[in-house]
């Protein structure tokens, strides 16, 4: 397996929180592989450690032990600044609670990550790229609206446009439809499928909903900090590692 390396490869990731001198193990040795172009659903009961795993995948958090290879690079060794650059350049993040800047227009929200990119992007180019992105998520006529003037589904689409503005190869979405009704949630999921198929963006999304998971090509199940079921190879491999 070492001759071929997946886009994302977790090797025996352990995450333990320490609360008042008590070790709380959340991830107890997770190993998964995700290839470029996959659309993966991560499922599991509440408290099983899905968000924890997503934060590690999204470089927002560091594992207690284990290896995380992203694009043939060991992430756990990177400094905070290097991880910030990686997040900016190679990863998009969509949150359950949208997390938009409250009193800023949709356009300003979408251009925001460009301020932190290493290469200089002029204001005009930034605006143009953001408006393109917003058109793609169907918000061409809502660019100057503030989040409070948008519906939940529209807000989540702004968040998706923001996650994609730097053209990252991977998109992480932690319960992106958790706050949406089934109709809008369907819209958002269709958008994910479209991004996955047309643009080849690798998408990993967390969900409780089996209906949502049906949109995915592969489902990874996690229970009590361990992968319990997935597509044959990844589950077997995880089992084999142990």
């Amino acid at each position, binding site marked *: 397996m070492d001759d071929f390396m997946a886009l994302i490869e977790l090797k025996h990731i352990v995450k333990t929180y320490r609360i008042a001198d008590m070790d709380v193990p959340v991830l107890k040795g997770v190993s998964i592989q995700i290839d470029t172009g996959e659309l993966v659903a991560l499922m599991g009961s509440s408290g099983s450690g899905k968000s924890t795993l997503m*934060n590690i995948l*999204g470089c*927002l*958090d560091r594992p207690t032990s284990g290896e995380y290879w992203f694009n043939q690079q060991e992430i756990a060794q990177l400094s*905070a*600044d290097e991880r*910030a*650059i990686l*997040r*900016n*350049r190679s990863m998009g*993040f969509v*949150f359950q609670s949208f*997390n938009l*800047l409250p*009193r*800023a227009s949709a356009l*300003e929200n979408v251009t*925001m*990550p460009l*301020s*932190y*990119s290493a290469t*200089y992007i002029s*204001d005009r180019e930034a605006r143009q790229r953001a408006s393109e992105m917003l058109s793609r998520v169907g918000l061409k006529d809502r660019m100057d609206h503030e989040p409070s003037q948008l519906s939940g589904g529209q807000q989540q689409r702004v968040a998706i446009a*923001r*996650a994609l503005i*730097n053209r990252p190869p991977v998109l992480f979405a932690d319960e992106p439809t958790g706050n949406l009704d089934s109709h809008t949630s369907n819209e958002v999921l269709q958008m994910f499928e479209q991004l996955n198929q047309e643009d080849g963006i690798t998408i990993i999304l967390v969900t409780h909903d089996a209906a949502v998971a049906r949109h995915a090509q592969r489902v990874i199940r996690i229970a009590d900090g361990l992968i319990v079921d997935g597509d044959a190879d990844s589950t077997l491999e995880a089992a084999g590692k142990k």
Partner: protein
Amino acid sequence: MKIHRILRTALQALQRNPMRAMLTTLGIVIGVGAVIAMMEIGNGSSAAVQKSIASMGANTILVLPGTAASGGVSFGFGTSITLTPQDYEAILRECPAVSSAAPVVRARTQVVYGNHNWVPNTIFGTTPSFLEVRNWTDMADGEFFTERDVLNANKVCVLGQTIVRELFQGESPVGKEIRIKNISFRVVGVLASKGANMMGMDQDDIVLAPWTTIKYRVAGSMLTSTNQSSSSTTSSSDTSTSVNTLNTLYPGQTSLYPAQSTTQAADNPISVRFTYIDQILVNAASSSEIPAAIRQITATLRERHHIRENEDDDFNIRDMTEMTKMLTSTTSLMTNLLLCVALISLLVGGVGIMNIMLVSVTERTREIGLRMAVGARARDILRQFLVESVVLCLVGGGVGILLGHGGSYLVQMFLHWPIQNSPGAIAAAVIVSAGVGIIFGYYPAWRASRLDPIEALRYE
């Protein structure tokens, strides 16, 4: 991240809460405004003091008889010697740093013209060089008296504008006779107006006459006549004491007090002086030559008065630099005091900024987490909050500058205090307010930059 983008982000953040931003900067506004107003008013008044010193003659040096000479200190040396007309001549002759000098004999008595009378502030007996020394070259009317008038002790005089106003009520006084101590003086000229000096004393309330005339005819007769109006009973001046006056009363006698020893008399062949003068006004050639002039005068007078190495001077030399220092130090003390108050207010303003920035960091924890999640590094966050507080302070500083300038302008308009624009203070205010922003904004910004992205995102 480019600076204009940081600035825009900061401005957007501040715009979200304009009322709070305004109230936060109030401390800076007041502090900077106070600094600017203080500096402008303070500079204005010290400039005014300087100007009035210059009008008095900034290079003027005053030579007065020493206390030892007039007070009768037990060491007898020198007590019988005070300033003489010969000292005045010697100073002019022997001191190269002196450009002009004038002897002065003072008197204070009533001046009468017709049925008007007036007690001038100053009645000076002097020489024509007085005008040059005092930098008072303009005559409003007539001419100054001459050296010949001095030699002959002629009964002529020159009046200041105040005297003309009080005694003549607008008539031209030239050629008229006024009476000083029952002695008739012919008015030969009127001085140009010089206004009040920095002590608020009217410099135009003056009568000038040849010193010989004042000495022998006015001051000399003063002791004998006791039936004078109350205002004219005082002897010529505080510095000319009875010892001096007695000498003029009994010419040819040695000083009555203290008795001169024979050795001293032998040491001091010209010790007996019949005539003393009250002061010598000296003008140094330039302000930089004042110390040299003082040195030369001291040397000349010590030699003439036969003062030995280890003895004190029997005369006093005063120059305007001390006066200038004293007056400017008073105003600069006030300015510094008020500046301290203003700086304290800036400090309080800075603490206000820090407080609000800390509140803002807490309020925007989620925003900080989000920015970090999309790739902001710790230094980007630090910079953003730092720029925000600096912008806040600079805006406050700018408003403060306008306010302070407006305030000092109003003071000038309505209280007629002199003010002087101070570009240095404005530059300092800008630097100080930016400094306050950096110093007091750093801690909140640092706190923001140290947040953990996940905890920040999860913050409620």
